[in-house]
């Protein structure tokens, strides 16, 4: 197990390097002279040249990349073009908000998805199954930004149960978390259902039934534990699109998280800010995936044999 974790850690090193390379290249892809862009509008030629010298932008590309990595690992993500403050400071303010949103959303994804999937699988092709699956299909088809607006319209504007936007109280979390978690919940529900249906046909479930176990013990102890194994991976992958989705949901509900920061930064052409945001989000995703992999391993010890 320890060896496995070590091996997986070693495997993500090239991925992280690759991610930093791509993020580094964003700057290079921007048309025009990086130094001019970084100096901001209306900067004098002297300022531009000074900046070029200071940031080493006159050095070859690979040297620039190495110094970029070195800086990143020291926590230096560069400075914002807007206010010249370190990007990392801004990220540190906003990351907890996004993580909180992501946490509650993934909670909704898992809990809602599992419950719906199990309800479906217990009586396949029944009305409850068809109902759940239709809702799940809608869940993967509705754009989150639209769903968010609809929820906001119904619950905040018409019923006035919940605040419209912002991030001040627990009540503020509810709608964004549902909006962001709904798509994942739908996918988890579909996966749980198909996985359960497959497991229910397995020999060991028949054995459990032949033992005279009660139906709920068969479902929850014998079937579900096995059915969950593939679902874990799906949840892990879902976390990625969830992080991407924060961009949209934070914009809909005016939440000052990383996602909204990136979008605002793109609008104002604040490239270092975009780089920092994308890099942080990707690193979080890479580590979450690592965690999911390890969990999968723990749940499914049979892999050891193969």
């Amino acid at each position, binding site marked *: 197990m320890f060896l496995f974790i070590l091996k997986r850690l070693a495997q993500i090193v090239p991925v992280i390097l690759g991610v930093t390379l791509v993020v580094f290249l964003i700057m290079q892809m921007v048309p025009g002279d990086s130094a001019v862009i970084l100096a901001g509008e209306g900067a004098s030629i002297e300022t531009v040249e000074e900046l070029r010298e200071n940031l080493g932008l006159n050095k070859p590309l690979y040297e620039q990349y190495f110094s970029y990595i070195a800086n990143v690992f020291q926590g230096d993500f560069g400075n914002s073009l807007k206010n010249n403050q370190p990007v990392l400071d801004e990220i540190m303010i906003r990351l907890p908000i996004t993580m909180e949103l992501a946490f509650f959303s993934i909670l909704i994804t898992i809990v809602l998805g599992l419950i719906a999937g199990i309800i479906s699988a217990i009586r396949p092709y029944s009305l409850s199954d068809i109902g759940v699956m239709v809702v799940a299909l809608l869940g993967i088809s509705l754009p989150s930004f639209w769903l968010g607006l609809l929820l906001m319209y119904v619950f905040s504007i018409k019923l006035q149960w919940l605040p419209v936007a912002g991030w001040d109280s627990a009540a503020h979390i509810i709608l964004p978390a549902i909006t962001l978690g709904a798509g994942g919940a739908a996918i988890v529900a579909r996966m749980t259902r198909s996985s359960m249906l497959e497991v229910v*046909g*397995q*020999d*060991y479930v*028949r*054995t*459990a*039934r*032949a*033992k*005279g*176990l*009660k139906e709920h*013990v068969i479902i929850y*102890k*014998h079937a579900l*534990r*096995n059915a969950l*194994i593939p679902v874990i991976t799906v949840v892990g992958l879902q976390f990625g699109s969830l992080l991407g989705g924060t961009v949209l949901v934070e914009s809909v509900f005016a939440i000052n998280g990383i996602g909204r920061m990136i979008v605002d930064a793109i609008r104002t052409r604040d490239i270092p800010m975009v780089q920092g945001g994308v890099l942080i989000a990707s690193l979080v995703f890479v580590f979450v995936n690592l965690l999911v992999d390890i969990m999968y391993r723990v*749940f*499914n*010890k*049979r892999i*050891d*044999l193969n």
Partner: protein
Amino acid sequence: MKNEVVLEVKNLKTHFISKKGIAKAVDGIDFVLRRGETLGIVGESGCGKSMTSLSILRLIPSPPGKIVDGEILLNGKDLVKMSNEELRKIRGNQISMIFQEPMTSLNPVIPVGEQIAEALRLHQGLSKRQAWDKSVEMIGLVGIPSPEKRAKQEPFQLSGGMRQRIMIAMALACTPEVLIADEPTTALDVTIQAQILEIMKDLQKKIGMGIIFITHDLGVVAEMCDQVGVMYAGQIVEHQNSATLFRNPLHPYTQGLIGSLPKLYENQEELQIIEGTVPSPYDYPDGCRFAERCPFAQKMCIEKQPELIQYDEDMKVRCWKYTAQWQEESSSREMVTQ
């Protein structure tokens, strides 16, 4: 106590109803199982023997499967008419089952000791601790060394033979009155097969349960069974004591089966095989279901289905050859040829 009938199956019919039609997998089975006795049910794959065994505990996948007729009497009480809850209390308690595939029949994510213990807690009301101890004891009883350690392991850590022993331990934990063993040794290699059979016989002596032994292996039947039902196309075609069956098989199908066995001391040029194929369960012929493959088949065999007739004490056969009509027909045939 012995000789007492524990399980009686009367005219059991299990059909599978689907778009393709009705598959009559089990089509009118009768047998009687006594305490301490082993009944073998033999036949080729697809003859309905596994479906018979699954029908007894109503474990047929439903839909599409359904017991459409018949009675299954455990100590006189009909399992077919029981509520699911009543039946649940019998499963694993009074009647338990061992399946063919030890690799897939155990839950891969639950320690084997717990898989045995859960039935003990449920049916015998043992505490967690007691059930675990009994479970370890059972694992030792089926001949697995260091049972305390093994009980905590998960199936993937055990060999095929060990897993089947675990299945036996699980099935026998609640000292059932009837054990249904569906090809329990087919997936195992020969030496382990012998050990498993030995354990089963041993435990039968200790517990005194009746065993229904489903197999396609006549060698195993000879070793294990007191009486034998031979199944063909959803029906029992012959029923005998196993001692007499091998010496004196009545039904042409049984004769074919026994003829196809490789004989150790005879220098056979080649094995006999029964030609032709088993009829589809969706569409059985009107007459005898074996007629198409039978070397003795006559007009009457194709026209009308024979009943399972009492040939002798403890000997039943479903074949026109042993009826009075056959005698008449054949004498009239002889007259025609003369």
